[in-house]
């Protein structure tokens, strides 16, 4: 593994993006009562477990109700 | 001043594949009227309206809006028209106010006018205080917003496609009230298959059946034309009704058409007024009591049913 310090320029923005996406997704889940499939509890769990992008992306692809 | 016709449709024909939907529709809508466009589902009401708006191409015939002809695609006549589709959909991420602003801007209204007019219209339809986005709106709210956006540009003609059919009784009444209020400033053409709506708010009507207008005129005229002389006789006992039906039901010498028919159990309909004395005499002789006897008003429903039978 290269030194952590050297990888920091990559890690920091990735973490920031993750956090933004996570907050945005959770806000979206909590402000909506209906989902294409699944329930609120399910999507919160999925989003938190798959925090590294995959959870939120899954939610927006499969769970988000069409506007 | 000479009264002009806001909409003149003549010889309109349209075919979808095998199905001939319109077979020469003739329709004239005079100014400042509420015009009911009646017909069964699938009679061709929506098709006629969509052709008027340039959303469909006619196979034959002409459509004139305020004297200018309308055609398929970009039609300039749309500037005269406000349109409320049967199931209106909006950009759900906007609020009603934003949506009206958007509508006003694409119509090219001046900014100041948009603001005052939007507020006025939203108040008219009872959405003045609504700050939520359209996403969460009910059918009735969407329908009302639809009227607001349709009236925004002060159209000469407001076309509403089945504005009440998907609504509950309360929602329906709200829409009808709004339409009556809108009558002050525009001509309204609205399609429906609900006849009571027509009776409530329309001045004139046309009946479309099987792709043709089978009846057209003011509500009174239409009713007068079909005024029936029939009597409704409701009897105290249902068994008496059966007896009378046995005696008079066949018609004399079995030649004439039935003069007495069953309307509902216990209620008979006398078609031939000249038979009245005879019937009454029979009832008196046989001590048959009646609960009610009255001249039957032709309802639009009767007229409608009769017209589409032909």
């Amino acid at each position: 593994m290269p030194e952590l310090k050297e990888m920091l320029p990559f890690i920091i923005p990735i973490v920031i993006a993750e956090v933004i996406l996570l907050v945005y997704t959770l806000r979206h889940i909590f402000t909506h009562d209906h989902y294409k499939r699944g329930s609120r509890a399910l999507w919160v769990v999925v989003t938190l477990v798959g925090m590294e992008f995959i959870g939120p992306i899954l939610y927006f692809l499969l769970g988000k109700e069409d506007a | 001043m000479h009264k002009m016709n806001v909409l003149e449709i003549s010889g309109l024909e349209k075919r979808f594949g095998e199905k001939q939907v319109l077979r020469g529709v003739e329709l004239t809508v005079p100014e400042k009227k509420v015009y009911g466009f009646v017909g069964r589902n699938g009679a061709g009401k929506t098709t006629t309206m969509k052709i008027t708006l340039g959303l469909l191409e006619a196979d034959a015939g002409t459509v004139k809006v305020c004297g200018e002809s309308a055609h398929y695609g970009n039609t300039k006549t749309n500037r005269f028209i406000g349109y409320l589709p049967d199931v209106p959909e909006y950009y759900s991420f906007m609020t009603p106010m934003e949506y009206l602003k958007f509508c006003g801007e694409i119509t090219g209204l001046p900014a100041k006018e948009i603001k005052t007019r939007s507020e006025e219209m939203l108040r008219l339809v009872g959405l003045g205080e609504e700050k939520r986005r359209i996403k969460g709106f009910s059918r009735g709210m969407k329908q009302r917003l639809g009227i607001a956006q349709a009236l925004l540009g002060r159209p000469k003609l407001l076309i509403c496609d089945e504005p009440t059919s998907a609504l509950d009784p309360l929602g329906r009444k709200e829409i009808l009230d709004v339409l009556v209020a809108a009558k002050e400033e525009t001509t309204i053409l609205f399609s429906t298959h609900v006849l009571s709506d027509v009776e409530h708010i329309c001045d004139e009507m046309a009946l479309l059946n099987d792709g043709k207008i089978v009846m057209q005129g003011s509500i009174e005229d239409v009713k007068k034309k079909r005024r029936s002389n029939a009597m409704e006789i409701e009897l105290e006992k249902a068994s008496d009704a059966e007896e009378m039906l046995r005696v008079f039901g066949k018609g004399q010498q079995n030649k004439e058409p039935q003069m007495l028919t069953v309307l509902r159990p216990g209620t008979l309909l006398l078609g031939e007024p000249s038979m009245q004395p005879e019937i009454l005499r029979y009832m008196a002789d046989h001590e048959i009591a009646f609960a009610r006897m009255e001249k039957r008003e032709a309802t639009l429903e009767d007229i409608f049913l009769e017209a589409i039978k032909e």
Partner: protein
Amino acid sequence: MRAFLKKEWMEMTRTGKLLILCILFIMFGIMNPAIAKLTPWIMEMMKESIEESGFVIGKVTVNAMTSWTQYYKNAFMPVLVIVLMSSGVLTNEYQSGTLVQVVTKGLSRRKILLSKMISVYCTWTVLYMALYFGVTYVYTIYFWSEDKVEDLFAGIIFYWLMGMFILALVLLFSTIANNGGQVLMGTGIVYMVLFFLNYVPKLQKFLPFRLMDGLQLTMGSLKMEDFIPALITSSVSIVVCGMISIVLFDKRRL
């Protein structure tokens, strides 16, 4: 038309599409230098298995070129994402019936289509240039500032044009199709046809696929003039697609 563009913008921001696109494009942009940076470590990990098979690896050197190689290798992902996002740009509105009201309000169909084109093309241009390219560029300069890279920008712009070409197809099919799936299918079929045509050596330099070979330009195995025919065919195709779209959209049932 301004109003319609404003509506497009509002839609992008309020539905969160823009946020998602930005995050994805930034991620794609970061990935390239990050993978380049990690290459020595990956090689180290796999050293044994590679040496077992008889190869000997010397010291792996990573430079700006490694990062740009990744850039071209991964550039299909931003294209794919923007295509997926744009496939519903018109079809969603057909399905919901929202355009009917816009048309009956008197906005001409051409202005609607033009607005859609502007918003799709602008989204792609800004996201690709500012985020995908921009992020990779900043990182690459930061880590390997001393490396000289030849003809970098030309290659970048070629790939951008390739994206524009695909989006022109997406918009063209959007005027015919009824749903996003059909748009993707149509675009996919044209892509496949071009892909097979690309096996004909004589055609290669005319096809838009050539525009993806910016790396060869940077490495010097292709010259600027090798791209000219493809540049011309692609630009002409974009314009022609646009014109056909306008004609079809004018006649389309909404």
